[in-house]
């Protein structure tokens, strides 16, 4: 991510309450022009509600939304330069594919020829020209998804909201469509906000992601940053897999800290987080791929003894479950980079090594 451009969309302290239930709590985000931004979170965490407020279907209970410098408060959906691709696609069942795509264009001052040209351009973009005259029930699920996308793009919105755009597709079509979405975004330059609960999809598609939990945004950043530097246990757990242990800081030096982890039966070296003080209780988390399995105790690395409890060999990589002296389990992911017959096996006594910088310290 280059340095922050001027915000194109600013969500400022937005909350939404249904009756007594707070679906969205004090969300603030800024999104740059041309960005693909993903909202990621579990079911019911308020992603759709946030999108609906951006589209104008719901008014925020508190807070404001600014789009391109304009306050969106009280602006009805039909006047917002924001289009939405619905989770269910919501195609008009009684109109052909071409009519569906051209529907929004009747509100623009275009001649019939211009309108038809735009529809053709859109059909071309999503490769549906041969299906122009079909009704939505006469095309497949993947094609419906593309019609919904073309319809939302036809009026050239400033902002496109996509609510679980790929949820209804099977795995193969889904991967293919992810790249298609990205290339369409690149060609049109429209700002995308994509809602998903699939973390891999979010990481593949997005320039930046926001992880939501119970109506709140827990963390925002580039996928790589959020993955490597989660700032809460929730985010660490939500993105990828991770093993977490209670820990206590024993001493703090200028560039590293020594942390006592009862589960390891040892102290380990870690990087620093702001305000770290000796005696502080926190959580140490480590991702499976950051650990190395070694036969001998390594020097210059953190080292923990263990015994292999379980393993799964996939060919290019392997997954191990290692039992620690305290009886707790830790996951290790190893890439089988070398051709070797003497791999760690069941009940082998081994050492786990990791760089001080690989350990993540979490307070929240």
């Amino acid at each position, binding site marked *: 991510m280059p340095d922050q451009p001027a915000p194109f969309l600013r969500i400022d302290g937005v909350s939404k309450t249904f009756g007594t239930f707070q679906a969205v709590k004090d969300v603030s985000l800024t999104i740059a022009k041309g960005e693909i931004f993903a909202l990621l979170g579990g079911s019911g965490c308020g992603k759709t509600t946030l999108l609906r407020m951006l589209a104008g279907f719901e008014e925020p209970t508190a807070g404001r939304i600014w789009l391109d410098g304009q306050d969106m408060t009280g602006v009805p*959906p039909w006047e917002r330069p924001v289009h939405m691709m*619905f989770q*269910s696609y919501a195609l*008009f069942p009684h109109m052909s594919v071409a009519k569906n795509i051209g*529907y*929004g264009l009747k509100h623009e001052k275009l001649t019939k020829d211009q309108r038809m040209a735009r529809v053709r351009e859109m059909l071309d973009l999503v490769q549906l020209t041969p299906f122009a005259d079909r*009704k939505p029930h006469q095309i*497949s699920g*993947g094609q419906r998804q593309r019609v919904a996308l073309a319809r*939302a793009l036809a009026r050239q919105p400033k902002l496109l909201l996509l609510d679980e755009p790929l949820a209804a597709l099977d795995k193969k079509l889904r991967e293919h469509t992810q790249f298609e979405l990205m290339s369409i975004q690149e060609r049109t330059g429209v700002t995308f906000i994509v809602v998903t609960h699939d973390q891999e999809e979010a990481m593949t598609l997005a320039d930046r992601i926001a992880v939501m939990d119970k109506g709140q945004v827990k963390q925002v950043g580039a996928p790589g940053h959020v993955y490597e530097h989660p700032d809460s246990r929730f985010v660490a757990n939500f993105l990828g897999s991770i093993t977490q242990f209670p820990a206590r800081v024993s001493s703090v030096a200028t560039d590293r800290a020594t942390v006592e982890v009862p589960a390891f039966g040892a102290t380990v070296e870690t990087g620093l987080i702001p305000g770290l003080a000796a005696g502080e209780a926190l959580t140490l988390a480590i991702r499976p791929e950051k650990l190395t399995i070694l036969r001998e105790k390594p020097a210059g690395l953190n080292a923990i003894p263990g015994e292999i409890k379980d393993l799964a060999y996939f060919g290019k990589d392997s997954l191990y479950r290692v039992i620690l002296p305290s009886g707790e389990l830790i996951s290790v992911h190893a890439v089988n980079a070398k051709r070797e017959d003497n791999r760690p096996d069941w009940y082998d006594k081994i050492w786990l090594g990791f760089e001080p910088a690989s350990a993540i310290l979490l307070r929240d």
Partner: protein
Amino acid sequence: MKRRPWFLFTMLAFGFAFFYIPILSMIVYSFNGSRLATVWGGFSTKWYASLFSNRQVGAALVLSVQIALISATVATILGTMAGLALARFTKFRGRLLFTGMVTAPLVMPEVITGISTLMFFILMADWVGWPGSRGFTTITLAHITFSMVFVTTVVQARVSQSDRAIEEAAMDLGSRPWQVLWDVTLPTIFPAVLSGWLLAFTISLDDVVITSFTTGPGNTTLPLLIWSKVKLGVTPDINALATLIVLAVGAGVIIAGIVLNRAEARRARDERLAYRANE
């Protein structure tokens, strides 16, 4: 499991017999040459001939159809609006009262509806001098009010099932609520509106009770005419008239069935083809 559910079959047979034997015997007796309803006097079509030359029957039929057309159309417009409001605006002041008032006539005995409508017309005539006499207008108004309920119920059921998201999609693409109604909502609920209209039309066409309360001198609808004739004894020309009505209704039902079946079959075939041909 070999045992036949003979009890069910017997009940079914009795049910059908109970329903269709009177209609069949009515059709048979409409071709009766004798003037007496219970004595077979040979095959004849003379009652049909006398029916077609009967001015009174013709006038009553025209009046009934006129009233049914107008009241069904107005009831469909009002009923559709009420159905949309009930299904879509889930929160508004007085919703419960409105729901109750809209659906009460469904369970209200017709006599009560008839009397209260009559009272209303009499009071109105007293206070504002309208309606001066009862007849076409008052019957039509009464039919509108009570057949509207049926349209409302049918439309409301259909709208609550339909996907709210397609209306939001239209709004999102720049259409104001009225335009959304016209472009998206009405076309998708059109079958329900049409069946609501047909329901209102038939209810109006065969109503006796409410019509008899709200009619005035010289305004005899077909059901009223039949009713008053039957009071003097069933004559074969009434059988002939009823037979014609049964045939008309039967033909309508069959045609509607064929049209709907065709459309459904075509849709199913398209869908199958789409899934096979794609990807």
